[in-house]
């Protein structure tokens, strides 16, 4: 008979825990797998019931996502043979490709606005958090509370004032306007999270750097920033996820120029009926940047989520 230990888990406990985690992961991943698969189905397979698990994959959804198409007469189709593989796919519906869709442009807008506002939130947030953490600021507690209070209502509650303000300032439907807006929403999260991380870094490191011949800013840059990398990475992921997924303000404030991907994807449904494979293809591509960004910073994220709970 083996003795009972608090620290070493028994193999039975481990097996149960492992099974639970795997089951949970499968349940959470199912919708993602479904979206990914639907992107490669034909429109008929996409809506068949019961859902098809085995199907013959096609790039139709992706072709439809990236192109605009028009129906043509048989005469035209016979006189103009298909120019490439994508054209060939749409010919089966008596269609021809007439040009690219707006998806590429919208996706690029999302990248510019999402990463731009994340960078700005982190940049301003780190400087503010450092100042709050290290310097004697008059009314620091009140200022911090004020910064947090911007998150006490849903951002969309101030949609109308922001809409009017942006119209007067000429910020409607601009990249800068959206970057500023998402930064304003994210900055409170960034300041509070980062202040927690920077508070944990002992001041002695900066003092040592000051004595070693560096200025306050150089000490911040060379000693504090590398140690705050964990906090910065996890804060950046949170900021990016918000800015990337934001839908309501994007619908309200952007149209022709600065529209991001979230308001664009549903409009695909309007063009030529319910083209679910194209929507799924758009959603799949839309997931990728945040996924790649998170995987890249994942080793920092794990500690970021549990920050404050354990001291190094």
């Amino acid at each position, binding site marked *: 008979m083996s003795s009972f230990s608090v620290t070493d888990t028994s193999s039975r406990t481990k097996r149960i825990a492992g099974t639970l985690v795997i089951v949970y992961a499968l349940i959470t991943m199912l919708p993602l797998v479904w979206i990914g698969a639907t992107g490669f189905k034909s429109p008929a397979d996409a809506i068949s019931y019961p859902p098809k698990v085995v199907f013959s994959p096609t790039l139709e959804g992706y072709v439809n996502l990236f192109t605009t198409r028009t129906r043509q007469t048989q005469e035209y189709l016979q006189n103009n043979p298909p120019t490439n593989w994508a054209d060939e796919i749409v010919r089966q519906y008596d269609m021809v490709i007439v040009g690219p869709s707006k998806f590429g442009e919208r996706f690029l807008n999302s990248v510019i606005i999402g990463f731009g506002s994340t960078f700005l939130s982190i940049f301003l947030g780190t400087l503010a958090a450092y100042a709050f953490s290290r310097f004697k600021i008059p009314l620091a507690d009140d200022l911090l509370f004020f910064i947090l209070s911007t998150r006490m209502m849903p951002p969309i509650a101030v949609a109308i004032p922001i809409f009017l303000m942006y119209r007067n300032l000429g910020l409607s439907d601009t990249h800068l306007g959206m970057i500023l807006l998402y930064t304003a929403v994210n900055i409170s999260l960034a300041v509070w999270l980062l202040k927690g991380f920077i508070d944990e870094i002992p001041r002695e490191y900066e003092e040592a750097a*000051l004595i070693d011949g560096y200025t306050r800013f150089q000490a911040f840059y060379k000693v504090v920033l590398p140690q705050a990398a964990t906090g910065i990475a996890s804060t950046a992921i949170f900021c990016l996820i918000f800015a990337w997924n934001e839908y309501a303000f994007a619908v309200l404030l952007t149209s022709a120029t600065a529209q991001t991907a979230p308001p664009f994807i549903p409009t695909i449904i309007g063009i030529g009926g319910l083209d679910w494979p194209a929507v799924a293809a758009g959603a799949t591509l839309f997931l990728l940047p945040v996924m790649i960004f998170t995987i890249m910073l994942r080793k920092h994220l794990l500690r970021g989520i549990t920050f404050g709970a354990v001291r190094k």
Partner: protein
Amino acid sequence: MAEVQLKNVSKSFADTSAITDMTFGIDDGEFVVLLGPTGAGKTTTLRLIAGLENCDAGSIEIDGTVVNHYTPAQRNVAMVFQQYSLYPHLSVRDNLAFPLRSPILKTPEDEITRKVNEVAEILHIPNKLDNKATELSGGEMQRVSIGRALVRDPAIFLMDEPLSSLDAKLRADLRVELKRLQAEMKKTLLYVTHDQIEAMTMASQIGVLDEGRLVQFGTPRDIYQNPNSTYVAARLGQPRINLLPSGLFGENGPQGASQIGLRPENIEVGKGRDAHILRVEHLGDQTRLHLKFVEHDLVTLIDAHSDYQEGETIQISAVDPLFFDAAGSRIS
């Protein structure tokens, strides 16, 4: 290397006064130790000289220049912190090179390599250079932290209880090593500690601090033999000095004397007044007797091989007692 002068320096934090009217000088090549209990203002004094704090009044001079408004970098001082404060994201080599790469020194890389290797050699850590700073033992970390100061040629080295978090053996080894380094390299050094052994063994001058005031400054021997107050007398010496009302031995004190101080070696056993042995402690190299004399407790040292027993009564007398007035100041 240079000399450092503090003139009437005061510093307070909020309502509490940390340093009051402190004046002393450190000559070129000297090893000065500030000795005092926790909260006496030792670390604050170092931080004021380093420029991590600004003084409220008075002036700090390095090499004849008033540096009150200089940044720490401009003062050209090196400091060793109690908690090592090695940069955790850097290797040992980069930690040692860090001050040399500062915008003020901007040392060429080949010279950095040479100096870092030289210092690593001196501190016996050449095989640890490529370790991360966090992968070292406490003693190694403190060596690196001393090394980070040694790679430079600062006006003064400031050390804030650098040995206090090490175990006893390592502390004794590094103590000797540090003193040897300072003597060989003729560096000016200000060292703070609450450990009287460190102060006595390393210092060329000791400053004794009490609640933010410098109460006595002098050579270790002078401070031990001629303390100017009961406070200073009690800070040095192990076992501590015995303080008694004057007159118990029939000695003739100067005018105003109300207490006498007797170090253990100043109590002579064998003749004089009766004292009762409460406890005998055999330490191997020495034997301590705890005595009841009139209604006072005394400690004295006797030959290691004497065989006094608890409960015996012996005769003791005072040799060259120190006289203090009622407030604790020395009268001679």
